[in-house]
């Protein structure tokens, strides 16, 4: 066993243990569930940084659960992309847990919130580290089921309605994915992704693989809210409590939708020109339609939700370009989007916490009263709009440069256009929401409590300093290792299987 392999199952076991313990003893005392939630996510952040170190030390790390070698048992795989996603998921989860300590005081049954939250984190970590396709489905369902319940956590009318819509559409997505898994099992007679990739690359690209690819694009597209399948997102994300909106928009749609989609398409089925065209098209359509729908919104959280669709379009566009630079840009944008979009949702939560509204027309001028919230909101808005030197600028720049290099001038144009529209949309938010004259009735507004401020400030600092990940040493360690994991394509499978045999 390679060094560092022992920590891999802990990414699932620790949050699960936290959730189980929390559901037993959390009811007695509120402080206990706060402590469990924050401490466990903090431990996960440390572990995920450790996993980056180990991946750089020894490359790809396979792990066989219960000492059964894949394909007989379930194999877990830690590679550059997994550790990249682990860092993204766990940092955002930690900051959101910190934020929830204050924010969720407004809701009843806080310990159930933290239990579901930890289960969702466990599900996402499980999806990211697994190397077995059915196991991926199981953990995807854990995260999804937890998120259905969390969207409806406030139990108001519109929350229940949004949760139902989300649950049904997401379940349909899961069913398509499961059907795809069944067909792949019948065709390859294995459930291990590496083993599957070897069989598929031997047999070439047949009709059944095309059918499976269509099913996967539909299924994971539903989870990731790509444009023809996006109808649930603008309802579900705004209806959830603010920390959960941040979690859903920030990392859930990425780890359940985008990560799984590109992992399976690149490393199992194998990328080709047709899939690349489809992904580029879906990405561009999501990017443009999302931003056009966002501009007309006056509900702050709804506007942010439409921007999530648009920004996911950027990520898919970058990954669909099928060049190393494009993949790097897409992944970097994924990280950046999870930082600034969760920050924006936390801002909206802080504003709602203080003023009780999220209608931009009824806000206005609260920057005097809430300097931290509006300051961090400004940072996040400039990041999402792509203004230098914030992190969003660098990743969008890389995606556009990659599109130009690949001779996709049309897509580069659309990316620039969507970026300009995003800027316009956030100018509106800043003008009506945070700056300008203080609106009557908001004189008594107070700044958010301490933990909420703390997590917003940390996220803002990460947004400002995001660009340093492009420095050569850091880039080689973090982004490049994630990008090579995808660019290797189905070649990675053989090396996993070789390592397991030894």
């Amino acid at each position, binding site marked *: 066993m390679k060094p560092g392999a022992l920590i891999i199952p802990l990414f699932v*076991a620790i949050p699960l243990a936290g959730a189980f313990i929390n559901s*037993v003893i959390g009811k007695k005392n509120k402080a206990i569930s706060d402590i469990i939630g924050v401490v466990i996510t903090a431990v996960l952040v440390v572990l995920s940084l450790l996993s980056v170190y180990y991946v750089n030390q020894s490359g790809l790390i396979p792990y066989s659960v219960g000492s059964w070698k894949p394909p007989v048992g379930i194999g877990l795989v830690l590679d550059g992309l997994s550790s990249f996603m682990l860092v993204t998921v766990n940092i955002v989860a930690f900051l959101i847990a910190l934020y929830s300590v204050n924010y969720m005081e407004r809701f009843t049954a806080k310990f159930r919130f933290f239990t579901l939250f930890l289960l969702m984190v466990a599900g996402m970590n499980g999806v990211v580290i697994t190397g077995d396709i059915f196991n991926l489905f199981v953990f995807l369902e854990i995260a999804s089921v937890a998120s259905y319940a969390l969207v409806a956590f406030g139990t108001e009318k519109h929350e229940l309605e949004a949760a139902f819509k989300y649950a049904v559409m997401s379940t349909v997505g899961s069913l398509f994915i499961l059907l795809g898994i069944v067909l792949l099992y019948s065709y390859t007679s294995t459930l291990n992704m590496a083993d599957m990739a070897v069989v598929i690359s031997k047999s070439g690209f047949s009709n059944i693989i095309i059918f499976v690819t269509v099913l996967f694009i539909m299924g994971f597209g539903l989870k990731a809210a790509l444009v023809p399948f996006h109808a649930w997102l603008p309802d579900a994300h705004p209806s959830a409590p603010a920390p959960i909106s941040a979690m859903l928009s920030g990392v859930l749609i990425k780890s359940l939708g985008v990560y799984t989609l590109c992992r399976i398409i690149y490393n199992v089925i194998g990328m080709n020109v047709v899939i690349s065209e489809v992904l580029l098209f879906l990405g561009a359509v999501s990017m443009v339609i999302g931003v056009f729908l966002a501009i007309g919104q006056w509900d702050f959280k709804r506007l942010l939700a439409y921007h999530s669709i648009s920004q996911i379009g950027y990520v898919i566009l970058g990954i669909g370009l099928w060049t190393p630079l494009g993949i790097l840009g897409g992944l970097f944008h994924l990280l950046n989007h999870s930082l600034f979009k969760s920050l924006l949702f936390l801002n909206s939560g802080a504003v709602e916490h203080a003023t009780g509204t999220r209608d931009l027309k009824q806000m206005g001028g609260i920057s005097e009263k809430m300097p931290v919230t509006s300051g961090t909101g400004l940072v996040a808005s400039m990041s999402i709009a792509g203004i230098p030197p914030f992190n969003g600028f660098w990743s969008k720049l890389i995606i556009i440069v990659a599109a130009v290099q690949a001779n996709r001038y049309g897509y580069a144009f659309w990316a620039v256009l969507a970026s300009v529209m995003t800027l316009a949309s956030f100018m509106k938010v800043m003008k009506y929401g945070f700056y300008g004259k203080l609106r009557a009735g908001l004189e008594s507004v107070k700044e958010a409590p301490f933990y909420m401020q703390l997590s917003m400030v940390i996220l803002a600092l990460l947004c400002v300093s995001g660009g340093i990940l492009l420095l050569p040493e850091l880039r080689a360690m973090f982004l490049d290792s994630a990008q090579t994991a995808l660019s290797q394509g189905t070649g990675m499978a053989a090396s996993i299987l070789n390592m397991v045999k030894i």
Partner: protein
Amino acid sequence: MASKEHGAGMSLIVKTVTRFTVGLIMLYGIYIVTHGHISPGGGFAGGVIIALSFIHLMLAYGKEAALSKAGKKTISLFESAGALMFLTIALLGYTGGYFFLNFFKDKGKPFELLSAGIIPLCNVAICLKVGAGMFAIFVVLILFKLNFEDDKRD
């Protein structure tokens, strides 16, 4: 009207038959759980059967009778205990170096009750978890329905 009906339970015939069958159903559930590694069945099916025996009791005698045998706190305690037990078995595998290792060296003789290492233990853990969980879902949905029938304002 509905709540009164549940408070009183069903008719005498149903109650008498229930008294005889509940024990049998539960015994069958326990059999299925403990023989899960030898014959068809296992923790999940057995757990649901045990939960069904409680649901049977609840339908026949009304919710008080069933809840006095298994209160809400007991249910959630059992559920979490089952989940923690399963996770502990998984983590105990680390003593042999692997997550979820079947850490018993001696797997026992085939076709005997005490064989197959961790498998019967896992079955029991799953049975606790599933039985309590299913019963909890049922109780909560029924109680909720009664609640909102009482309370038309909501």
